[in-house]
């Protein structure tokens, strides 16, 4: 009954919205799947089969209803070298391996690590993704017939202009149809999708990747698969977060990880490349009224039907039309607000965001960008918390005893400052250091205190430490602050 209820809620609660949005998404997926195949350096059919397999499998196995997954640019960028050096078959094997790794990641609950990915890193990720998608279009814009440029501009005008007149038809589709029609009628000689490689003419079939199944192969594909797994999961979790926020409903990230894994395994065996969730497409899906699992399933099915039965026509689509659609996707994915925010947000946050973008764009690897962002935000945080340290001094009336009261966080980032707060040149009989309201987080902190004691002793000063037990509890009982009754005093400075 509970299962039945869940099935009804996930699949059938918004059937009409899901059916229509599934169609809109399928139409938007076709140009993307083709474009991303070309980025990876494989035939368009590889991306189209992948998009079909992934969308359909995720509809059943995913943890976030309403999210769209298919072949993506972020993943395609990571495959270029593997495809160029070893060929398609190795890519298929790497795709299957990526899926296996993602299933393992799902069982290891790696999604929990997402809490270390700060908002600024997410913004950086999204911006970097948009820039990468845009940069990937440049080869289609450089060294091409002049007619391409007006076609791209015209396409963009239709894409952004038509919704002002009517929102009932997908404007990217109209742009593609109009540009294709124009190029055929006027006989404009521009590169078309058909020039770029083989399109699907049949349903995908199950095939084992044609590779030597040995350790050497594994060593070739493993590094690629590990990166693909990371980037795929990152983008999927981020997209799931976005969809959670948009629909105000929760999702199961661990199930999503396993679902992505299964989808990639199926994709690999049916001749598709690895993919993941797509931010732009998911936003389009939600915008078009898609909320349930049905929209992803229908998007996959519609996509395959259209491509297989209209393959002659798909082949004649000018690349200029695809470029226009992809420029729209990159504009829609980019967070333009973040540019205005640069002026008002804290400098450290902006640094994290920009660091993520720069490293990603330079390496074409979102995993490296996110790692940079996470490290930068951790450093920024440590620096800030290191400032939550106050040392008060108090001298007895007779001038014989000096009391230092330490309040705040002592750890590697604040150990030096802690040390500099003590006046070793002062001549007193005893020094009392009250650390009851301080936290000693690590060995650097303890080391700093040891040095303070030693230095005073060498000056012939008697040192007394108060409240060391409380202060070092964080060191012993790992990370146990909340149970301290005075916890708010420690932080509320």
């Amino acid at each position, binding site marked *: 009954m509970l299962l039945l209820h869940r099935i009804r809620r996930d699949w059938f*609660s918004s059937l009409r919205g899901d059916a229509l949005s599934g169609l809109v998404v399928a139409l938007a997926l076709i140009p993307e799947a083709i474009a991303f195949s070309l980025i990876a350096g494989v035939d368009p059919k590889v991306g189209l089969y992948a998009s079909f397999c992934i969308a359909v499998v995720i509809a059943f196995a995913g943890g976030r209803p309403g999210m769209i997954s298919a072949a993506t640019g972020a993943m395609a960028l990571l495959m270029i070298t593997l495809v160029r050096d070893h060929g398609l078959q190795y890519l298929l094997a790497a795709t299957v391996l990526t899926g296996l790794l993602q299933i393992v990641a799902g069982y290891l609950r790696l999604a929990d690590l997402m809490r270390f990915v700060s908002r600024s890193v997410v913004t950086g990720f999204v911006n970097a993704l948009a820039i990468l998608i845009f940069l990937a279009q440049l080869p289609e814009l450089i060294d091409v017939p002049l007619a391409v440029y007006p076609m791209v501009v015209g396409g963009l005008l239709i894409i952004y202009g038509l919704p002002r007149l009517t929102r*009932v038809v997908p*404007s990217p589709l109209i742009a593609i149809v109009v540009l294709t029609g124009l190029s055929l009628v006027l006989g404009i000689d521009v590169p078309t999708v058909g020039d770029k490689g083989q399109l699907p003419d049949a349903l995908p079939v199950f095939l084992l990747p044609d590779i030597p199944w040995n350790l050497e192969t594994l060593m070739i594909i493993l590094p690629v698969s590990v990166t693909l797994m990371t980037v795929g999961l990152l983008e999927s979790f981020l997209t799931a977060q976005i969809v959670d926020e948009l629909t*105000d409903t929760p999702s199961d990230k661990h199930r999503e990880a396993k679902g992505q894994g299964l989808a990639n395994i199926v994709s690999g065996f049916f001749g598709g490349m690895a993919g993941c969730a797509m931010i732009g497409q998911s936003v389009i899906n939600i*915008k*078009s009224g898609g909320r349930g699992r049905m929209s992803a399933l229908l998007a996959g099915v519609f996509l395959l039907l259209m491509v297989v039965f209209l393959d002659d026509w798909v082949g004649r689509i000018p690349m200029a039309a695809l470029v226009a659609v992809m420029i729209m996707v990159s504009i829609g994915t980019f967070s*333009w607000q973040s540019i205005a925010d640069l002026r008002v947000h804290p400098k450290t946050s902006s640094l994290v965001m920009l660091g993520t973008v720069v490293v990603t764009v330079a390496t074409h690897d979102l995993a490296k960008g996110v790692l940079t962002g996470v490290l930068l935000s951790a450093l920024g945080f440590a620096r800030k918390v290191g400032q939550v340290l106050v040392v008060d001094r108090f001298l007895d009336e007779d001038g014989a005893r000096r009391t230092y009261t330490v309040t705040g966080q002592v750890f590697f980032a604040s150990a030096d400052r802690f040390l500099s707060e003590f006046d070793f040149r002062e001549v007193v009989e005893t020094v009392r250091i009250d650390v009851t309201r301080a936290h000693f987080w690590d060995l650097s902190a303890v080391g700093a205190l040891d040095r303070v004691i030693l230095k005073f002793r060498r000056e012939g000063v008697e040192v007394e430490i108060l409240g060391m037990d409380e202060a070092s509890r964080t060191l012993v009982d790992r990370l146990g602050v909340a149970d301290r009754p005075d916890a708010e005093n420690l932080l509320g400075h």
Partner: protein
Amino acid sequence: MTSTTKDANYEIPVDGTVMACLDVSQYNRSVVDYAAWASRRLTAELQCLHVLDDKTRRSAGVDFSGSIGMDAQSHLLDELAELDARQARIEMQQGRAMLAEACARAEAAGAHRPVSLQRQGPLPRALTELEDGVRLFVLGKRGESADINRDHLGANLERVVRSVHRPILVSPRAYRDVQRFAIAFDGSATTRKCVEMVCMSPLLAGLSCHLVTAGSPPDGQAGIDWAVERLQAAGFDPQTHVESGDADRVIADRVEQLDIDLLIMGAYGHSRIRRMIVGSTTTTLLRNCRIPILLLR
């Protein structure tokens, strides 16, 4: 917090409120009436609860343009949030009006200090969060989203029964005064608990009491004797009815024949596995009986 009396491992709430769980369905009136009746008998405070539920029904306007412009995501978020906010405000106002009406009705029926309360759904979760201060939940047999024409239980009812640990009074569409009640008894721990509860609670004191047993209970006559003894000690004059046959059929027949006004039974079977099976005696009786059923965990 509710204090509980521990008696032979049974936990029976002895204070807390009576909570009438209302929505915009035809069952509201009888739910309020039965809740008022219980509140009167238990001299417990009555709370009328409305749970705002089901966000999935909300959807944005028609936009199949499939294009995403600058900051598409944050614009869409603003749009959807505004839409949700508008609908939530309407639902909240409707709910408040409904609660005011319910409280007035309860007060007229002599309920003890009716208070109204609104919470965000889903319903089962809202109820489990509130159950600490509650002695008895009163729910309609079918909710607003259920189809009245079929013998279909409210989608939420079954989930509520599974997740809530307090007694639940499931009300039919029409209220009638309670004179005679029956306990569905099979000698199991759950039905023994029902007997204990009847004995300890002022809810049914002084009413005509029947003990209905289908087939032969595992511990035979001994279990029935125990129940009769307990009930007599509590001042009841129980009449026993033992009959062979399917539990649901026997109980339903007897309820009709004896003109019973309230049926008391354990909520779902005793084992985990049996609880999973839809179509247990409880579900069948819930579906078919036209009288209120008091379910006990």
